[in-house]
């Protein structure tokens, strides 16, 4: 059954943009998704440049993230008049991956200083799914309080913590699995490889050669 999902994706100034790239690849590949609004914060661009070894400008960053499909629209986080600023603009869910601790803090307080934080503010008021993939450790009291606040307001805090029961051997495998779990939260599951059946998963069986 065809769907017409519109997803808002934000990349902010924390580590792990390899997962952002995988998530974007999956969304672009998925026929159930008709439109992706992508926002990369200024610090997000720095992290992309750092982790992919590219330049920091918008075009280089978009290339590095593989955001090349015509269904992806790049929005300027400084433009508070952009489409996602209003609840009247429909999108189905928003993911911030990675989510920096400062972004979490501002969302928790309603301090929508840029379009990313405003879009998250809108998601909460319209009760649309908001997934914040926090990449921070250790967590100070402010971080913990902010995680409680956004959760009470309806967001899902989904820290970028890997799983091990699939017996991953490479960083790429860890990132693939994390991206798939985020997609599951968005109702866009693609595979059963990571499904725990009580004893094991297909991915684990592959890696460990067990039945």
């Amino acid at each position: 059954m065809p769907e017409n999902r519109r997803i808002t994706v934000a990349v902010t100034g924390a580590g792990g943009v390899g997962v952002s790239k995988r998530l974007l690849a999956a969304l672009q590949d998925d026929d159930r998704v008709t439109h992706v609004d992508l926002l990369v914060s200024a610090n997000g661009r720095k992290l992309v440049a750092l982790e992919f070894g590219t330049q920091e400008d918008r075009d280089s960053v978009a290339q590095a993230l593989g955001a090349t499909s015509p269904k992806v629209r790049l929005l300027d986080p400084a433009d508070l008049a952009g489409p996602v600023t209003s609840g009247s603009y429909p999108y189905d869910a928003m993911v911030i991956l990675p989510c920096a601790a400062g972004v979490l803090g501002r969302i928790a307080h309603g301090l929508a200083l840029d379009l990313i934080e405003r879009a998250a503010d809108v998601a909460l008021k319209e009760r649309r799914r908001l997934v914040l993939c926090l990449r921070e450790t250790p967590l100070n009291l402010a971080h913990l309080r902010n995680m409680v606040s956004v959760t009470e307001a309806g967001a899902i805090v989904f820290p970028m913590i890997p799983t091990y029961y699939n017996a991953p051997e490479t960083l790429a495998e860890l990132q693939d699995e994390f991206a798939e779990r985020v997609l599951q939260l968005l109702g866009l599951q693609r595979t059963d490889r990571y499904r725990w059946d009580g004893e094991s998963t297909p991915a684990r069986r592959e890696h460990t050669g067990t039945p």
Partner: protein
Amino acid sequence: MRLVVAMTGATGAIIGVRLLEALRELEVETHLVVSRWARATIAEETPYTVREVTDLASVGYSPDDQGAAISSGSFRTDGMIVAPCSMKTVAGIRTGYADGLIGRAADVTLKERRRLVLLARELPLSTIHLENLLALSQMGATVLPPAPAFYNHPSSIADIVEHIVGRTLDQFGLDLPTVRRWGGMRQGAHPRAVTSPRDRHSMGDDSVAATA
């Protein structure tokens, strides 16, 4: 009387404009700050230029001017109105995040225990918005969402705006003569101009039969 007026980037710029006009008519000295995104809503929503709007005020300041007179409690005012007030401004005032003149002026207004009236406009309101608004109310600010009234039988958007502006001015003891105030429920029919016969019937208004 001297009032600080701030306009921020929530929808409803026309309310701020009419407020400034009304204060001018009432000969109140106004000190105006228009935020970066209120400039955008003025252009987007109203037929006025930002200059035409700022000309309505006695004194104007840039939103980045942290050294302005109104940034200090020693500069006496009778209070402040933010119209319209965005949720970001609500959050900034609640948290004391006074990084710009609007946030700072509001911060000053609260610390000097002068009246702060926020025409906070957002729909729906999230838990975070509600927590911020509750905290502000507890801190002494007046939360005045610019929601229309209907008991005064508005027949245009201008009527709706006028009523909201009038109720805002009431907060400072200022009377706008155009406000239609409630004087008690009238016995008998509703004004025919406002509702159709079908509407009156579905409201269960038996008095219509008596006057038809």
